[in-house]
């Protein structure tokens, strides 16, 4: 197969691409080539330039210098419209749908080209939507409004959109980030089929297992430069990690045994978490993990009572949850975890403004020194505590989000996908931090879709299915298989 690809023609080639934002060089002379019928993975830590490169390919960004050639033709003025006409389609980490429009229209708008005065054929639109969704094995109702879809369902619509264009070049930027294992498996099957049809695929992901399993070639970016381009069969995981970070990182999780204390959080009839314990929460996307976290934290008050530190409480608002000693690191970092436009100092103090103020007035000096302490403790890379968080890399943003909660010194910390979309280096640092917090006696509820992370970090793992807790596994009985069988119910082994 390798030789076959070597021989197949080059469909996309980028040469010496340079791109700067506000003086910061995001891409420094990157070259990249893609052949028909190959899956070419693009990996690198956050901020390495993967997404920027992807946007240069789709025409969302124009490079400062360098050339883009598609099917041998040099493209001078690239744009989303031009790239689409050339047969390039993209699936992004965050679905971007029209919330007010139906699934079928969301798909149709991406596929219909030509004059605005043409008629819309609603019937044809629906039939095509249905057909495309069936191709991916989804039974989504094409009449549903996009605003009623879950993240995973939205991603499915995105994939259907990309399929519908009959693209010859498909760009996938972390398509599995919001998908469950089974949905991801399904997606890989699709990727393989497309590859056999001769579609060239650029695949961006943080999940090295995924990449090693399905990619033909792997290009590694670091600090806006191309570090290596290897055949997938020639590299292994440790080597890739070393290429990405420039140093070697053990893939072992830093879990240490800590003395388990009293019950800190008790959800009656479901589960309890003790001081010093890391309680993992597994389940498919849509199984109700995030909803559970949101309810616990008072974002969607349910009216039911839980026990915090042995005291029954009914939590109706996040403010009350904080007072009761809860902290919640949300899943969507950019939208919920931090306020991108505010500075590091302002973000760190946001959940505990009272501690940096006197008589209701904020003491900015105290605020800044507080932030400075966490910046150095958590090794947040930033020029000063007064820069907007939006200018930081994903991993550093996540650390700021975490710092905000550490300031409140919670007794129970809920971490919802704390390492999603975070580069390998920061990921290890965050894992280490979680363990330290547990050692300090914090009770931790860890929600994650990454099974190795859950298995490596948790003392016990609860598995959710269809909005309820399907079972709890101890550290010694938890395996990928046992978790998945609980998560899927009776259809064990389907994953």
């Amino acid at each position, binding site marked *: 197969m390798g030789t076959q690809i070597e021989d197949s023609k080059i469909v996309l080639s980028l040469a010496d691409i340079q791109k700067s934002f506000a003086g910061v060089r995001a891409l420094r002379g990157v070259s990249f080539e893609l052949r028909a019928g190959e899956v070419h993975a693009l990996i690198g830590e956050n901020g390495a330039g993967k997404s920027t490169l992807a946007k240069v390919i789709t025409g969302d960004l124009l490079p400062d210098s360098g050339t883009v050639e598609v099917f041998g033709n040099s493209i001078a003025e690239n744009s989303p419209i031009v790239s689409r006409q050339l047969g390039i389609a993209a699936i992004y980490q965050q679905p971007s749908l029209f919330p007010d429009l139906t699934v079928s229209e969301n798909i149709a708008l991406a596929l219909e080209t030509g004059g605005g005065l043409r008629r819309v054929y609603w019937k044809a639109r629906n039939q095509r939507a249905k057909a495309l969704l069936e191709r991916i094995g989804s039974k989504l109702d094409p009449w549903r409004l996009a605003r009623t879809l879950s993240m995973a369902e939205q991603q499915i619509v995105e994939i259907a959109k990309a399929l519908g264009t009959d693209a010859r070049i498909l760009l996938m930027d972390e398509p599995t980030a919001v998908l469950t294992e089974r949905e991801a498996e399904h997606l890989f099957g699709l990727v393989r089929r497309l590859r056999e049809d001769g579609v060239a695929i650029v695949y961006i992901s943080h999940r090295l297992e995924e990449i090693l399993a399905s990619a033909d070639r792997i290009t590694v970016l670091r600090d806006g430069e191309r570090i290596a381009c290897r055949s997938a069969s020639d590299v292994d995981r440790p080597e890739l990690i070393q290429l990405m970070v420039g140093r070697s990182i053990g893939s072992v999780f830093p879990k240490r045994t800590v003395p388990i204390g009293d019950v800190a959080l008790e959800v009656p009839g479901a589960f309890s978490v003790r001081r010093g314990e890391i309680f993992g929460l597994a389940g498919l996307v849509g199984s109700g993990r995030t909803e559970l976290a949101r309810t616990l934290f008072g974002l969607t008050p349910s009216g039911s009572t839980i026990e915090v530190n042995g005291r029954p409480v009914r939590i109706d608002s*996040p403010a009350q*949850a904080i007072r009761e000693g809860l902290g919640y690191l949300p899943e969507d970092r950019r939208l919920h975890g931090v306020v991108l436009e505010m500075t590091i100092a302002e973000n760190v103090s946001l959940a505990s*403004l009272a501690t940096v103020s006197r008589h209701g*007035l*904020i003491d900015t000096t105290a605020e800044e020194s507080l932030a400075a302490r966490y910046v150095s403790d958590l090794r947040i890379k930033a020029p000063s505590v007064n820069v907007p968080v939006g200018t930081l890399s994903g991993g550093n943003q996540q650390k700021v989000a975490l710092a905000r909660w550490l300031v409140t010194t919670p007794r129970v910390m809920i971490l919802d996908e704390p390492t999603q979309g975070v580069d390998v280096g920061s990921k290890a640092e965050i894992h280490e931090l979680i363990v330290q917090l547990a050692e300090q006696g914090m009770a931790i509820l860890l929600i994650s879709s990454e099974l190795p992370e859950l298995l490596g970090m948790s003392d016990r793992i609860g598995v959710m299915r269809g909005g309820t807790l399907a079972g709890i596994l101890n550290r010694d009985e938890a395996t990928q298989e046992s978790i998945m069988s609980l998560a899927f119910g009776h259809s064990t082994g389907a994953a």
Partner: protein
Amino acid sequence: MRFRLGESRLFANSEGILLLALIAQVAFFAVTAPAFLTWGNGFEILRFSVELGLLAVALTPIILTGGIDLSVGSTVGLAAVVFGVTWDHGRLPIGVAILAALLTGLACGALNALLIARLRLPALVVTLGTYSLYRGIAEGLTHGMASYTGFPAGFLQLGQGYLWGVVPLQLPIFALVVAAYAIYLHRSIHGRALYAIGFNSEGAQYAGIPVAKRLAWIYLLSGTVSGLAAIIYVSHLGLAKADLGTGYELEAIAAVVLGGTSVFGGRGNLLGTLLGLFFLSILQNGMHLLAMPSELTGVLTGLLLLGVVSADRLRSKRVGAAPAPRWKWAIGAVAAVTLIALVFVVRQKATQGSAAGGQHRMVIAVMPKAKGDPYFISARAGAEEAAKELGAELIWDGPTSLDASQQNELVESWITRGVDAIVVAVENKGSISTVLRKARAHGIAVLTWDADAEPNARDFFLNQATPEAIANTLTDEAARLIPGDAQFAIVTGALSAENQNEWIADIKKRVAERYPRLHLATVQPSDDDRDKAFAQTQTILKVYPQVKIVIAISAPAVPGAAAAVEQSGRKDVDVIGLSLPSICRAQIHSGSIQTIVLWDTRNLGYLTVYGGWLAAQKKIASGATEVDAGRLGRLVVRGTEIILGTPLIIDKANVDKLNF
């Protein structure tokens, strides 16, 4: 502790541009406008900025959180009416009235807060609804009664008095509110929460910020501050009325937006709002001192708003690529603005300069109730005629819409400018008298026309006809046209218009005394809008088929009512009223308007300038019973009233002889 406002956020937005523009503006007016750069004028600008300033300050945190409050102007109206009702009707002490007004503001804010913060309804739509609702309640509450005046002198001091002889008394209150808001917004926990909400309200909620509560607060505060603005406004004008604060919401929003607060939320601060506010007030003041027409201020305000905000947007678009040219934009914007202003002024000066000789010419400033009203436009021709004849300089300017406080402001700037005579068509007696007395104290001859001020506030009143005479003429005319028992209807201007309400009262009185066979069916407002008068009359004809005559007492309403009768095909209904020959001529000829009652507006205009000229030179002896008024011949003087003559009855026979 440090004040964060001072560092990172100060020049983050368009404040830099605005500050430069403000300096350029002040420099420009200092050079061109007489008496602009004096302490007195500075404080007058501040005094007139207070009401609008309070609203702008209250709107800043709202716009900052991505919201908007269109109801602030209406809240001012409602709070003012409640204040007046409590004091005047309820005979309660002024302190209670103040409390009632503040509580009204609070209640208005509370309804907005409930709908916006609690029920999560879009602010624009909610306040669009309460904008109508609050104004509507104010109008409903006062119906029949025009306005409340006669407040105690001590209370009026608040809006009209001075501290140390020069600082307006309401200024410390404004400063206090600004300081409180500055602390609230820029130093307090609440303020930080508001910025977080403005940038990302969901993110703020995840950080444990009680978003709904914080938002509710700012709408409550905005209502209460509007209540406070209403109290100061009432004290400033000496009158409480349902239409106070009309249009203030948009002016306040303009000031906030000009000050760099982004309607998308998150960006902006109070300093910017103050800069925006002063920029607009100084523009208005400077233009008045230069005797530039008021409409020009509106045009310039619009252009500047577009200019400054566009420059900011274009700049921030390019910041990513190259941060250097931001000052170029700023300088460019300021240069463009200054250039536009210069061109206008130079042109205006040139036309004036060519006419002016060398020596001092008498300057006579004449103010209509509103510019753009055909009645006053026809008077202007007469005024210009007299000015030419006497070799005097005429300044003709007034509010662009009926607005008592703008009249005050204009008089103030005329005092500052130093004119020889001020002749005012008074919109509201209670509100303008103080400032007119001030003008007299400065040795300026003060006359009133069309409607009078308090007698001791002016030297002479140019009396074209008393309200009673007008009402009687109209009623007699109606009685003449329809014999026997009949119903009639009145189409008025605005429901809160003072002189029209006076006429209605006099018509009712005359009917009761002389013509018991006539019955008033209904009174409908037309808002001085021809098309609305048309629609109202159509409805009247259908709902009250017995109505045989429509009396329209607002100039645009007469042709509107006549058109409605004409198009309904009802030959048995007559239309009479108070209007101008120029806009009724065709319909008088066609027979759909029987009679209009008016005096010769051109002569009245002539008399404004002629009377001002005489009074400024003290040429009218006290106790005189007659005065020589140029081409008008000898006019009767009764006490301090110069009588123009009796009202004209205009019909088919004489309409073509009148050229106004």
